[in-house]
């Protein structure tokens, strides 16, 4: 009887652990994103060629994202099995299936499929979202005909959308190859300041220095949103171009910008440039009402080597804003002044939202003073705090005892272990510290 029960349990567990291919294929068509994604990842893990006929039958009825997933699944199977299926899908009615299958075939060396992609891109009635997903599939394919089709999508009447950003991020507007004519046309013609700014940034990254002042003018005269600036920044970062004109425009723009996140991005971009002149505006941000801006400003000034006055850092250290106080403590530590440690320890012991960061900061001091507060955090209810404390404590102990080696988990059981075993390990750790905190190696 017991054997039968055990067998039944095993059987039901096995059935539960391994849903059938048919069930997973059906779940791929679910409207619930989680169900659909689970089925997709499970099928991906299994790499079962038996999925091909099932997908060929089911895919045309899927929602467009599931159709794209279906082709990816087939494409990851051995080429001998997947090639015929992909060829079939490249003639399907759905443009998503066609373009994705063609892109997979292209990846497998079938270069003659480019017209299929071009035809799919010219399909009428696609939404911006759908087109965006399709563009991601053809990214990186270098073909003159496809390039023409993609550039045709950069119409003047198209509003700034995901499609635009995808088209502008790669070789389409001639960033990696070509002469950048498409980008130049956008700067000249587009009615959207965002598009003009991103196209100009692309050209600046391509060493077209005459567009530096154009980009600076766009930034001065139009309020770019955070997303657009992020795209401008990514081009300039990739090209390692930080023109003085652009940095000066940022210096004019940032003090007027009400969006704190955007101000933080502007500060970080300036810090990335490494230009230490004209940083008065960043120094002004140290008095900002938003703690995130203050922290970013202090960190940027530290990175740029702009000396901050000791009185100002002292004031920040005592301020109510924990983020600013931690930034000041970090700044002082970098200058070999450990006076910020006390405040950081106080934040660790408080209920501040900055506790996790404060733990990280006191770990960087590598001071014996930080060990007791860190040991206290090891029993915290939040796993993130416990994890941060473990890392900080490991850093502190390896720093203070260079002649010893430590276990990277300091003898603590892995997350998910019973609380009693954790407490016992913490007690051992505490006992070790008590016996070694005196003099000696």
């Amino acid at each position, binding site marked *: 009887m017991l054997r039968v029960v055990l067998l039944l349990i095993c059987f039901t567990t096995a059935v539960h652990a391994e849903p059938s291919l048919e069930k997973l294929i059906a779940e791929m068509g679910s409207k619930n994103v989680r169900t659909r994604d689970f089925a997709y990842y499970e099928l991906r893990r299994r790499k079962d060629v038996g999925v091909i006929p099932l997908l060929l039958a089911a895919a045309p009825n899927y929602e467009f994202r599931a159709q794209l997933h279906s082709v990816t699944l087939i494409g990851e199977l051995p080429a001998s099995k997947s090639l015929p299926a992909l060829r079939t899908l490249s003639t399907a009615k759905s443009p998503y299936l066609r373009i994705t299958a063609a892109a997979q075939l292209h990846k497998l060396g079938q270069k003659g499929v480019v017209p299929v992609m071009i035809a799919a891109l010219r399909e009428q009635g696609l939404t911006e979202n759908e087109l965006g997903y399709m563009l991601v599939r053809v990214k990186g394919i270098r073909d003159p005909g496809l390039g023409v089709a993609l550039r045709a999508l950069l119409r003047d009447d198209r509003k700034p959308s995901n499609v635009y950003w995808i088209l502008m991020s790669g070789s389409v507007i001639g960033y990696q190859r070509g002469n950048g004519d498409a980008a130049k046309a956008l700067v000249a013609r587009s009615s959207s300041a965002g598009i003009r700014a991103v196209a100009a940034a692309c050209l600046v990254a391509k060493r077209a220095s005459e567009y530096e002042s154009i980009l600076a003018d766009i930034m001065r005269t139009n309020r770019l949103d955070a997303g657009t600036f992020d795209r401008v920044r990514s081009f300039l970062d990739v090209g390692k171009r930080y023109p003085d004109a652009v940095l000066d425009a940022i210096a004019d723009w940032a003090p007027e910008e009400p969006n704190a996140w955007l101000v933080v991005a502007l500060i970080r971009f300036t810090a990335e440039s490494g230009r230490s002149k004209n940083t008065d505006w960043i120094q002004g941000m140290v008095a900002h009402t938003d703690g995130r801006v203050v922290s970013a400003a202090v960190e940027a000034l530290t990175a740029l080597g702009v000396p901050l006055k000791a009185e100002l850092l002292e004031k920040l250290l005592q301020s109510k804003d924990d983020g600013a106080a931690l930034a000041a403590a970090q700044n002082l530590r970098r200058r070999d002044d450990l006076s910020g440690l006390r405040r950081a320890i106080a934040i660790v012991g408080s209920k501040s939202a900055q506790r996790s960061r404060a733990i990280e900061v006191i770990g960087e001091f590598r001071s014996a003073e930080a060990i007791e507060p860190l040991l206290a955090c090891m029993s915290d209810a939040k796993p993130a705090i416990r994890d941060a404390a473990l890392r900080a404590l490991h850093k502190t102990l390896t720093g203070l005892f*260079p002649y010893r080696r430590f276990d990277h988990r300091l003898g603590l059981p892995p997350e998910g272990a019973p609380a009693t075993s954790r407490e016992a390990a913490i007690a*051992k750790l505490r006992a070790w510290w008590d016996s070694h905190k005196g003099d000696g190696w």
Partner: protein
Amino acid sequence: MNLDRDALDRGIRQASTSSTNHLANLRGPWNGFLRAGSDESGPRRFGRVSVVRWWWGLLICASLAQAQGASSVTDRSRNLESTLELALYPPSNPERCVMLLVDPSPSLKSAEFASLLAAVLERQRDPGAKLALGVAIVGAKGKPLEPGADAAAILAAVKQALLRPTAGVRDVYAELRNVLPRLAGTKGRREILLVTLENGDIETRLEATIADLNQLKVRVNVIAREAYLSDGYWTGSGRYRVKAPKGTTPTGPDAAFIELPAGWLFQYTRVNEAAPSGFAMYGLSRVASATGGRIRVYSPPAAKHQCGAFVSCAFCEGDHSPPNEGFRAARLKSIQPLIGAREGVYKTAASDPYFLAVLEAWDAAARAKLLETRPSVRIAGDTLALERSTANQALQFRGSSPKRWVRDAKNAAGKADKIAKKLKSAIATATGGSDRYRSVAELTYMMLRITRLNLLYLAAYAKEAGPVQFAKRRSRTTPPELPVVAKGDRIAGLYTRDFSLCHGVQPFLKLHLPGGAALKKELQELDQEYRDFLRRNAHTPFALALSRMSINCFQPARLAKKGKRPARKTSGSGADSANTRPERGGRSSGGSGTTTSGGR
């Protein structure tokens, strides 16, 4: 090396009483003038006219003596474009014929030299230009571009050369001689603008080249990178390999010879090979100054600070921003290297009490096996002579016998202490020496002190932790600790970890180190001496070099469990890989203007 000790002692005594050391080494007409003025034999020298002449001579010679230092001909910048513009189109802009001699190195390409040159030529485009510009490429076999006003041809020649840059070692002085005939018979002021960011440290016939240049009245301006302080990379154990072309002499430092002892026990980094000096290589500075030109030292935009070159930092995450790192022009001027002809520099050094004390300490330390180099020069009468070989066998701590290490380390520490004390007293009593050699002496003293401390730490480690960590039957450790030597590992000897002094000595006082109160007291004394050193030498290359010394931590060197060894990878072969000197430490700040925060 057999150092003439009597000569050394005599030199120290004489130098302490001499007040005209530097002036006595001036060459040319002023030398004779000064000798006449200082000669005590003739009564006519005390006449009114001769006294006036004597003072005028002294003043002029003093100004010339100043001119012999590298500061007088060196400008520093982090902006290659403005440096280039200033070199090609100086404010006075007389009628000139300039040969642009470009050394096509990878760093010049990555600095985008061709596009910067294009921008400068575009900005300065003027139909009535007084500049005829030609282009020659270092190491190129083809014919140089004759001086003219064809900007497109100039740019094309430079771009072509930088298409495939090479990192080989090249003799730029030979190239200067090759270019010289192109300027013969040209109109206006004749100049060569040598742009070399990686070469200049392989010399051939330096003084003869200068004579040839002066004969044709050709002025040499140079754009170059900073040299490393007292750099002797080619004498090292192969970390920076160099294969000098046949018939050339490798030289590298900012000064005429290697002034600083290098290769101290336990130091992974030879600090003088990783500390930028603020000046260009001696040969380049010498050519520029002797022909009436200028040398423009270009430092690339500020790099991220590193607490040590090739060593770890025990006290930060690589985000340290040390207050003493940036150089200050006034301080650099006081410790500038001499860039007169080598014979004159040797004579000056041979009569400098600080340098003679360094030489003595260096020799004694080499005999005590505290470092792996012997002095680079020896006393030869009233001057110095270069040593051919400077390799020295330093102490070895091999095997796995901590008891023997205690004895050897204590003996060596005692010797280091004696040498350091003697050097300290020589520094205290010396008068009349130069600031540079005083800094060299002070840094040598600090190096001796740090070596002594490291030896004492080794002795303490071998006594306290060694028996535990080297024992055949290893004791068990309790969590959170792991055994330093894991079960099954074999011990291959002693392993040292270097912790740089970039944060000073103070943070080491908080670490749990062997040696107890006695060594803590030693550390406190070193901390005081470190602060005293910085008081005199902060914002100079010597402070930077000291901050790159390290205090060591010792451990058993472990060999992994027995098993199949992975196949050894062969490194890239070919002349270029053998000739390439890897990038060494730089400064995150300094270089432009009086201080230092690294503007662009």
